[in-house]
């Protein structure tokens, strides 16, 4: 396999899954003939036919709701919600059914489904296309939630999601769709759900983040490295379940942590990570866990999105704050 962008890696994962497992179906708006608005499903419709790669009506509750009916009959639907910002019409189906089906049927029927959705900002997308509401899904018991930050992880996590016996929300940081190319292994491989990735080793402070914020954390870490402050960077990848061990062992080593996310601060996943760290590594902490996040304002239209989102500058200021605490 040659080099791939993230969106190509996702496409590849879907192709491998369709080829390997006849129960896998793809459904969503514009996923067929058009190959998806980001081309994540490019060519799959012509390769696998319209009974396996299905253009649906414009109807998120319909897509997710019928996916459940397909799943309990043994299909493994991988549905695409065109943008995470448009998942809310199907939110009830997720909260009340997708997440609870195993409990409600006492595991009587399979419920193996994946919901993919591009999310986050940074690409000058039109209004109301850029939500990062991952916490909505993390908070709902019965769902797993993952998001990759590299092409390799994108493919491996998606295949892991597809083969997971439980429903997985698979979030795709749009900003990273085409930002990086790398050689991605061919064929089926899985990045286990529940395992964070240590992106960079460090001694003085732990930067915990995911999705489109990972490159920002890494870039900030490089800058500080030169000044003698060494940052460990952790890409959570799996937002639920969290890899507590990786988080805690890093913070126990560094004694300091910053969580970075795009979503508004209040009630975001950063709160959970901070709460967890102080709960389970209290005596190791030399400073409070600081959050660098979007502000508690509606995700702005793109003219102000750079001001809204965490960036080198904001993370750097937080590092300064933490190491001089």
């Amino acid at each position, binding site marked *: 396999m040659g080099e791939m962008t993230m969106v190509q890696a996702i496409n590849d994962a879907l192709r491998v899954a369709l080829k390997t497992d006849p129960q896998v*179906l793809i459904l969503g708006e514009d996923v067929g003939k058009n190959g998806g608005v980001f081309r994540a499903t490019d060519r799959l419709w012509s390769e696998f036919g319209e009974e396996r790669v299905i253009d649906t009506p414009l109807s998120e509750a319909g897509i997710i709701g019928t*996916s459940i009916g*397909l799943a309990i009959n043994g299909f493994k639907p991988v549905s695409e919600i065109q943008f995470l910002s448009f998942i809310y*019409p199907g939110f*009830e189906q997720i909260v009340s059914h997708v997440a609870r089906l195993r409990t*409600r049927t006492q595991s009587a029927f399979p419920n193996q489904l994946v919901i993919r959705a591009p999310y986050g900002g940074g690409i000058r997308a039109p209004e109301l296309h850029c939500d990062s509401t991952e916490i909505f899904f993390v908070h709902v018991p019965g769902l797993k939630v993952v998001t990759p930050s590299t092409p390799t992880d994108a493919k491996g996590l998606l295949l892991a999601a597809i083969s997971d016996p439980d429903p997985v929300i698979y979030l795709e940081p749009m900003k990273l769709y085409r930002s990086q190319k790398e050689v991605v292994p061919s064929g089926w491989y899985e990045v286990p759900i*529940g395992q964070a990735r240590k992106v960079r080793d460090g001694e003085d402070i732990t930067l915990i983040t995911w999705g489109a914020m990972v490159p920002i954390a890494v870039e900030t870490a490089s800058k500080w490295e030169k000044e003698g402050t060494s940052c460990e960077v952790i890409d959570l990848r799996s937002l639920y*379940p969290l890899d507590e061990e990786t988080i805690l062992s890093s913070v126990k080593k560094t004694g300091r942590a910053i969580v970075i996310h795009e979503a508004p601060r209040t009630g975001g996943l950063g709160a959970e990570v901070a709460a967890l760290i102080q709960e389970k590594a209290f005596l190791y902490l030399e400073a409070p866990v600081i959050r660098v996040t979007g502000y508690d304002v509606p995700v702005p239209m793109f003219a102000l999105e750079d001001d809204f989102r965490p960036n080198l500058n904001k993370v750097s200021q937080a590092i300064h704050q933490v190491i001089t605490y």
Partner: protein
Amino acid sequence: MLDQLEKEIVQYLTPEGKLTSVGELAWGEIPTDLKKQFFQWMTQIRIFDRKMILLQRQGRIGTYAPLEGQEAAQVGSALALSQDDWVFPSYREHGVALIMGMPMQQVILYWAGRVEGCRPPKGVRLMPPAVPIATQIPHAVGAAWAAKLRRESYVSVAYFGDGATSEGDFHEGCNFAGVFRLPAILFCQNNGYAISVPFSRQSASATVAEKASAYGFPGVCIDGNDVLAVFVTMSEAIQKARSGQGPTLIEAVTYRKGAHTTADDASRYRPSDEVEEWIYRRDPLVRYSLLLQQDGCLTKAEMEEWEEECMQKVEKAVKIAESFPKADATHLFAHVFDSLPPSLEQQKEALQHLEGGYPWEK
């Protein structure tokens, strides 16, 4: 709602127990055994239903949603189904559930707040009651889609009420069923009310059935208290679905004789003359019993014998349900995921090690 029956509807058996002309034809084709089953099941679920209300009054189960008055709609439709058909009920379809093969004690357990009451026996394709209104409709459509994609011949039925037609999920589910021409049956028991809200406040179309045209498939409005009309219409819809002719929306016009649930007081919103009309003149079981007796299929004595049998069945099921061992608290974690992630293992452990009393009491 007195005009519920003034819609243009399919009727085989009048409230007086007389067969209409189409009814005569149908009656001739129904095997005696099935004729008896209609009666037996309607009786069975009515007795079950009354017992459940009693159990609720005695605090032995929680809030309960009674079905009395809707027996014909449930029995006529469910008896038309086969073992491998899928059913997606709402919370009032105990009759359907029992007919599909759900053990009675489990239905009782469900209303006693026990999740163990949700799981159907192997081979019974029945989902637990859908509590959020209309949400089961897309599921049923998805199951129908699976049949079509697999070239299997089962059909999939969503049961829902008149109120459900106002929800987006009804619309989105029906739309998929139409677009993909799926073997789905949308079975609406229009009992005239969504809790207190009359159908006229729910919809500006006179019937639910006519809504089907928005989705490109047929809708039929039938007398839902007429078990024959329900059975024949449902059988036809199933036949069409199995043979690839797509979905049908069936509106069974009926009435719940009692309250919405045991927590509801229906006298606040339903006029008593209307209620009496439905209880005393339009009862589905009474009219069918009249027909049976007149027809000679079943004697009054046989009927009473059957009632006795039903009561015993119900008592037995109650006993089994009530002696069902209480689930341990850790059952909370039993079916959350296929395997528990570490944080949930920890929570489960914490629950297990939760000690009673206060530290200083030890």
